[in-house]
């Protein structure tokens, strides 16, 4: 299916253009989710998209699936309820860096720990965009924001390492510049049986770029191009060469751990068999 057909099929009629600013990377990420769903041939009636609050979380309203635009930080608990109650449904979580790692941070580590089958697409634009540019836990150290006029002094999260440590069994990253890689890793994340997180590095020209000498959307994408390194190449680089760069692609996958809803079905069988 062509991209135009994909947009026509998976976006709700009459809801474009979207609310995102000129050059915002969110549209690219959302398009990549649709490409992945299309590639896997998923039934739209069987897909649930749950989002939190923030710029990226507005994506749920555009997409023609069962969709929940939940509360700030709460996408993962709602998604957990959907998935555990009805495991046959495919659950995709759309969230942002602030939504997922600040107010929703506790939910993130516990969803990862449970290894519940869902695909989290974390739109990382390094900023709270909806409220006008405050720093998030993923704003790079030393960046400026409206609440960091003298630049941030807080170490930022590497969310891929965070969820890996917490128990996620599929971890990937890509950027909106590397949109093909992004669509590919989202596809693999959806296929993965377990908790999958994809960090989608997305540009925010309005609220991050303008404060950090990159107001031009294309400049932000060039920054992605120049700082992202494919995992295979990254693995061969020494520490000095890695400085200031970050890996993209599938960063971690473990298929040996039990998935939560499957484990719960086993628990039901055990309980009904009279065993504790």
């Amino acid at each position, binding site marked *: 299916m*062509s*991209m*135009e057909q994909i*947009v026509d099929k998976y*976006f709700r009629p009459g809801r*474009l*253009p*979207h609310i*995102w*600013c*000129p*050059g*915002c*990377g*969110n*549209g*690219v990420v959302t*398009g990549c989710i649709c490409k992945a769903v299309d590639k896997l041939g998923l039934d739209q009636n069987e897909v649930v998209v749950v989002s939190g609050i923030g710029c990226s979380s507005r994506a749920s309203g555009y997409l023609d699936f069962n969709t929940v635009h939940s509360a700030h930080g709460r996408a993962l608990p709602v998604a957990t309820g959907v998935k555990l109650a009805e495991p046959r449904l495919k659950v995709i979580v759309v969230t942002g860096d602030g939504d997922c790692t600040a107010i929703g941070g506790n939910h993130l580590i516990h969803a990862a720990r449970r290894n519940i089958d869902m695909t989290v697409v974390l739109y990382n634009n390094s900023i709270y965009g909806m409220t006008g540019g405050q720093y998030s836990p993923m704003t790079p150290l030393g960046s400026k924001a409206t609440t960091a006029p003298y630049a941030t002094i807080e170490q930022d999260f590497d969310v891929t390492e965070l969820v890996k440590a917490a128990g996620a069994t599929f971890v990937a990253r890509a950027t*909106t*510049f590397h*949109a*093909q890689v992004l669509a590919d890793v989202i596809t693999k994340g959806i296929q993965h049986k377990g908790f999958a997180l994809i960090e989608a590095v997305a540009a925010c*020209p309005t609220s991050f770029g303008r404060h950090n000498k990159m107001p*031009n*959307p*294309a400049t932000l*994408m*060039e920054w992605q191009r120049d700082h992202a390194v494919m995992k295979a190449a990254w693995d061969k680089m020494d520490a000095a060469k890695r400085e200031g760069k970050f890996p993209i692609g599938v960063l971690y996958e473990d298929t040996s751990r039990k998935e939560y809803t499957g484990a719960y079905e086993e628990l039901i069988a055990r309980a009904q068999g009279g065993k504790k």
Partner: protein
Amino acid sequence: MKLKLITARCKGCGVCVNFCPKKVLAISEVEKCEAVHPELCIGCGQCELRCPDYAIFVEK
């Protein structure tokens, strides 16, 4: 092969213009993408791939 522009969706961000290897595209006076040299298009799809607004498609 030809380019299809959906001007109503375009916000004129210029990403497509920047990454077009053949300088086919430009931002117009009304801040919309336009194909100024469509004859040079090689159909590489770099514009479609990164357009955040689903406003440009390469028809093959």
